């Protein structure tokens, strides 16, 4: 059975190491990239069903990548994950079309809830 592909883009190695395993445990395929450029350069852009995207990164930021993808007509649902945001950050991101915005560190429950909202599932644990 073909699983949905969730791509993780974060400059922090801890996140890149930990999230893909959890995503696989949740029944998704997962890939991790250290930067937006790395992701764009990979062949995964067209296959990705959902992005777990860090906001603040060296080089291209999360929102920069979002704009870039919109320009390319790649309408991939985005769940932002941020380590330094405040409440206004989430509101801003949702307003700009993000599916969700999670503050690090987030629980697996919060992640599941966000993914469910993207993939239209309920109680998928």
């Amino acid at each position: 059975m073909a699983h949905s592909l969730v791509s993780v883009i974060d400059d922090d190695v801890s996140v890149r190491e930990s999230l893909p395993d959890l995503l696989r445990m949740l029944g998704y395929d997962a890939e991790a990239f250290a930067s937006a450029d790395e992701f764009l350069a990979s062949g995964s852009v067209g296959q990705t069903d959902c992005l777990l995207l860090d906001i603040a990164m060296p080089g291209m930021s999360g929102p920069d990548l979002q704009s870039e993808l919109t320009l390319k007509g790649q309408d991939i649902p985005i769940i932002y994950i941020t380590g330094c945001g405040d409440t206004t950050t989430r509101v801003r991101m949702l307003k700009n079309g993000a599916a969700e915005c999670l503050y690090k560190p987030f629980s697996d429950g919060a992640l599941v809830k966000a993914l469910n909202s993207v993939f239209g599932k309920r109680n998928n644990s």
Partner: protein
Amino acid sequence: MTDSAYAECPLPLDNSIPDDGAASLDSIVCTDELHKRPSREPEHQKENAALAALVVALADSPSTILQTLADKVLDVLSADSAGLSLLTKDGKRFYWAAIAGAWGPHIGGGTPRNFGPCGDVLDRNIPMLFTHWEWRYPYLGAALPLAEEGLLVPFHVNGRAVGTIWAIAHNVERKFDAEDLRLLQSMGRFASVAYQTVESIEELKLEVAAREKAEASLRELAGSLEQQVLARTEQLRFSESRWKRIFDNSAIGIAAVDRNGRFEMANSAFQRMIGFTEEELKEKSYIDITAPDFRAFNVSLMAELLEGKRDQFNIEKQCRRKDGRLIWVRNNVSLLPGADGVPHNAMSIVEDISERKAAEESLQQTQARLSHAAEIATAAELSASIAHELNQPLSGIITNASTCLRMLDADPPNTDGARETALRTIRDGNRASEVIARLRALFSKKNVKSECVDLNEAVREVIALSSSRLRKDQVALQVSFANDLPYINGNRVQLQQVILNLLQNASDAMSAVNDRRRRLVIRTERHEHDGVRLSVQDVGVGFDPDVANRLFETFFTTKNGGMGVGLSVSRSIIEDHGGRLWAAPNKGPGATFGFCIPQQTADITFESMRPLELSSVATAL
């Protein structure tokens, strides 16, 4: 013919007989005739009356005695002209000092000493009778009417012949006789007295003239003095009136108090400012209207003024108006010298600065709010940075732990995967701990600069920064700098934070002090061989010896609104410099806080993490 004609007469210089065959002396002298002629009867009564009149004249009007004498001679001898010739002081001429009768107009004229009848009389020192002397002395031909006969008698002063007294007959019928000679000789004796009188009068006149001249210059001086006095008075009056106008109409308050501080006068601007009338103020002293917080300081300044220790002083203080409202005023107080040169009053120029103060305070509040906001912003920035740094590994830890649990809960459990994620959890935990270590590093030596510090200069900068606050708190700062102070290795900014903290503590400790001058002494000294020592001495409330050992503990405070971090942070800074922060009660009121720092050869490392450095960490992150 005028008498000026005589002055123009060419006067022979000797008694040589002129070449034109002028008559000899003998031909004009007929003295012997006097005794040959029948002598008329003496008129003793007339003579006595004349002499009596002369004596009276001598007493009453001595300056005209010679003329009176001539008049009397004319009268007594029934001559046509009569007069007196006096030898000039240089002895070269005779001048006609007084003339009565027909020759009256010739008064002031005269004859040469050696070529004239008077000279002849004086040479022979006998009375002589001349007839038509113009035959021998042609210049006398100009003196009209011509003399038919002239009788001359010499008179003497102190045995010296000084002149002649004479009578002239212009009428050929009038012949002088022995009685005339006797009368003229009698009058001649009187002439001597008259002459001396006149002479002394002349001397007196000279003296008087000199005295008058002196008096005149004195009068002039006095006049000019008087003028000066007048001008000065006018000036004073003007300045007084000007002063009065200024006093009354000035928009600035002006008040004068006596030595006891009681109001003596107050202009209307001051009355408006303070709400009391001048009459009400006269019942008060300046202390009464001064707000309690400012009284002691104001009184001490006034005392120094009255003791002559200062010429004037300025004070910004609060005053209580009659309606109870507090106003801010700026006073410039100086002494008013009294008439005796001793000052009895102090004059104060008073300006209402309430508005300025309100603006200043609102500015200060704004600044305080801004600086507080900046602190909060800095703290927020810092905490965000720290959060970001820590949230990454924490995120990994939580995600890994969740994954681990899910792997263990799976059927069958994925123990290999669980082990793998558990190992990653440990690794993320170590990463978090590395972040903490990195933060610690940022808080410490990387960011702390050690440099050569001139303690005096550092103190000066702190004083410059706090001077407005110290002034506001009415602290009299006294500085004593050692001029042989060695430089020390250290962090100048941190040391200045300590100094600032000590200054503010000292100032705060004196805020309740109103019965003495709020004196603050800051002193630098050499410590041991090559270290430095700084002390800050106040006359404030001091500290309870029981709490002395807790003074430097974090969050220990004796101040209302104090955080209790200043001294503990200060102590850690000083200890990082290898020094010691200390406190000691004064013998008198107040306490002395200070530190000593020894000279250090090696660079100092600053290990402890303290809140004072938050801002530098924030920018570094």
